[in-house]
């Protein structure tokens, strides 16, 4: 807990100095914000075809948005992490809305060897990950955000509470109920699949 408090205090020190116009603190803060939202954006935006870097682009946009909003940011007693993740959630929602209207880009042929997983491994992984996303999409928004922060981003219950404006105890109760719901939804989905086949 003490190291986490130190981390939180370090972040708030960076924020206050960045708001005051310290360029060094602004750079450091942007690096911290990028690490905070990078996994979150990759979890919310699945990769498809040649659009694999959408999540990275959105993470950069979140950094820009936080940077633009920084001069107007006032510490009102709410965690800075909550501010950052709310900006990220809005950016992801914007991208998802625009993706329904946008053109479908095609992947360029690579000029260098691809050392990533092969097609079979990637398909299996995306299949499982896609099913996990489909199950999470059936949860209420607050539970979905909570599970993404805990599982995909890897935050602790305390950090998730700060990001969502909840107490750690409330996070633990809510995550338990979210897992219960996911189990029930997965079982219902399996039964439906079995009856169709």
């Amino acid at each position: 807990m003490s190291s986490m408090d130190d981390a939180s205090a370090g972040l708030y020190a960076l924020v206050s100095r960045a708001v005051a116009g310290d360029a060094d603190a602004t750079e450091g803060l942007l690096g911290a914000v990028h690490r905070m939202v990078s996994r979150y954006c990759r979890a919310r935006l699945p990769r498809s075809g040649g659009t694999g870097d959408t999540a990275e682009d959105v993470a950069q946009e979140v950094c820009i948005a936080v940077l633009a909003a920084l001069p107007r940011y006032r510490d009102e007693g709410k965690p800075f992490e909550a501010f950052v993740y709310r900006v990220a959630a809005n950016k992801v929602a914007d991208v998802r809305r625009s993706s329904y209207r946008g053109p479908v880009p095609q992947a360029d042929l690579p000029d260098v060897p691809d050392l990533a997983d092969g097609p079979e491994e990637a398909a299996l992984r995306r299949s499982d990950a896609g099913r996990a996303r489909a199950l999470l999409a059936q949860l209420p928004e607050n539970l979905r955000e909570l599970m993404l922060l805990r599982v995909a981003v890897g935050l602790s219950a305390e950090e998730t509470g700060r990001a969502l404006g909840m107490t750690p105890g409330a996070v633990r109760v809510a995550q338990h109920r979210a897992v219960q719901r996911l189990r029930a939804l997965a079982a219902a989905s399996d039964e439906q699949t079995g009856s169709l086949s």
Partner: protein
Amino acid sequence: MTRPDGPPAGGSWPDGIAPAELPPDLTALQATDALLDRLGARAATSHDLHDPLVALLASLADEVDAGPAHRPGDRAVVAPRPEPASSPWPADAVFPPHVPRTRRAGAHRREAASRADRPAGGWAARAVGAGTARLVRVGPMVATAAAVLIAFGIGGAITGDPMRPLSGVISLLSPQDTQPVSVASVEMTIARARTAASNGQVDQARRLLHDAETRIDAVPGEDAKARLRAQIAAVQAVTGPAPTPAAPLITATPPPGVVAVSPTDTPTTDSPTTTGSPTDPATSTPTDSTPPTESTPPTDTPTPTVTDSASSAGDTTSPTPGP
């Protein structure tokens, strides 16, 4: 074994949906919390992965950790996952979350599937059957490789340096050795040192300062180097100079006839300044795409994106609380 968060033993939930209004058991809460901690830390056990839901969630985490898709010329995707060495957080901080991963959760399942699919006679038996045809294909490649090695050997004998003919190939294959270190990563290390010094952790602050000093030579731009050295000096005024462990070994026993190297010269010629850069997250991340700090200064970017971002950011200064 009944799962702590599952339905009651011997039955299922009445309508297929777990009743959220039931007060959860404290043990079940703790078990779920520990499970999610392991998933978030990418440290799910094989026992955990037997649960289909946990396996699905582990796959999601696995895909998230797989990083951005590979693009031609994008070396950061091919490079190993960087360590958050330049984080502004304390070294033992829990946030941002990073647990040293020895293997991904998906690897457990893939290896298990591979073992299950192994043929009865083993892979060796299958390989013997295909050996003859493979030799026919491999033969020309072996001959070509031998010719190349002979050519390089002759070149090495002529130049006196057996590695010299390969220097061009090495520099082509590993351009990361010359990859610059970003100013932000070094500044964040200095910021961590400053925080550690202000907290009384002098040893950690000195270690971070030493780390920053070793990487400062790879930072592009003399102005930036001077600025970073000034920042280091300011923190060193509080902590004292950073330790240089390699220096006494060089100056202790200079062989006769060899000019001794002074301790102040050794850090400038130390090779780790460039070898450490590919594992730096702040170095590889900005090179993936547009670095926000250098291309978008806060004062002169009223672009539509920023305006839109600011509006959405403005809506979120009072985030909605959770349940």
